[in-house]
């Protein structure tokens, strides 16, 4: 038994998420990762934007900040600049990070800000009523795309890696034990680290696309996911509609806040560089 209640605002439960929503599974994995990391809870801060995923900070007993739509990364940057000793974790959704906050997302990755981003990808805008998001696959339905979306979708992991993130991982709600390992790894990285987690949305995504219950979606993740080590040996055509899980990309680059503080210390009183 894991003492989840230690980290929860239990008076706020039951949470707002629908029956069978994956957000609760991700929240639990995150709490296990935080517990395992051994980081003092007073040095952790959780920032979120708007959306189903972004309701998470309301239920956890840490320093939390619930901000405007898509701007979680902008607020997190401010926190990290003002308090570099804090560990900042950004909880965001696919619409929040890739559409409304798309620019913040790519530029946070480009600057290599020392933030851990946990991206809940349910492939639809859940809270606003089921509109297709940038990660809704081509041809899948949403409330404003009754004949199927005609837009191709983003591969969030490739986007982040191309923009400059130093750690990019993907998993699903089915792989609940892998989640805490990946989140823990991401937390220990100095730089922009992203964990994309596929999460079932029974109310809109599964319902509109007739994919069955939330449980059917979870089992679909089990059937369609391939570990990244195996995927590297396969032909790209074999990976169509597959979910590649694990640490997708890892590299090392100078981190923004360190560079910034180095620059700050290098400047003398008369405003010149030493």
């Amino acid at each position, binding site marked *: *038994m*894991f003492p*989840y*209640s230690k980290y*929860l605002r239990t008076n706020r*439960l*039951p*949470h707002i*998420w*629908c*029956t*069978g*929503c*994956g*957000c*609760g*599974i991700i*929240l*639990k994995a995150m709490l296990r990762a935080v517990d395992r990391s051994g980081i003092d809870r007073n040095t952790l801060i959780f920032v979120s934007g708007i959306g189903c995923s972004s309701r998470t900070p309301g239920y956890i007993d840490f320093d939390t900040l619930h901000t405007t739509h898509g701007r979680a990364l902008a607020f997190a940057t401010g926190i990290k600049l003002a308090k570099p000793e804090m560990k900042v974790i950004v909880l965001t959704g696919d619409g929040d990070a890739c559409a409304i906050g798309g620019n913040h997302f790519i530029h946070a990755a480009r600057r290599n800000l020392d933030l851990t981003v946990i991206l809940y990808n349910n492939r639809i805008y859940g809270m606003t009523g089921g509109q297709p998001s940038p990660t809704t696959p081509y041809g899948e339905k949403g409330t404003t795309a009754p004949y199927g979306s005609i837009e191709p979708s983003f591969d969030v992991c490739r986007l982040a890696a191309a923009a400059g993130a130093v750690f990019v991982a993907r998993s699903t709600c089915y792989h*609940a*034990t892998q989640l805490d390992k990946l989140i823990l790894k991401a937390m220990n990285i100095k730089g922009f680290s992203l964990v994309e987690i596929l999460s079932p949305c029974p109310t809109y995504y599964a319902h509109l696309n007739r994919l069955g*219950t*939330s*449980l059917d979606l*979870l089992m679909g993740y089990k059937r369609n996911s391939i570990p990244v080590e195996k995927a590297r040996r396969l032909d790209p055509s074999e990976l169509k509609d597959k979910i590649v899980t694990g640490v997708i990309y890892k590299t090392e680059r100078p981190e923004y806040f360190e560079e910034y503080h180095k620059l700050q210390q290098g400047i003398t009183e008369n405003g010149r560089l030493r």
Partner: protein
Amino acid sequence: MPVTAKKYTIKINRELCKGCQFCMAFCPENVLAMKKAKAVVINPEKCTGCQLCELYCPDFAIEVEKKNE
């Protein structure tokens, strides 16, 4: 050595359970079932303590605790 039955206690918080059936589906021993759209324990003696139900419950509604001998 005799096998002591019911070594684990399963606590279900009915106020938090939303009836998603994840616990029931993931339980390998058919310990859990649904009653009035909430999870209930039907075969407590079969529980092996794998805690899959607890792992997948998105609602913090189920806890598996080892009984003190």
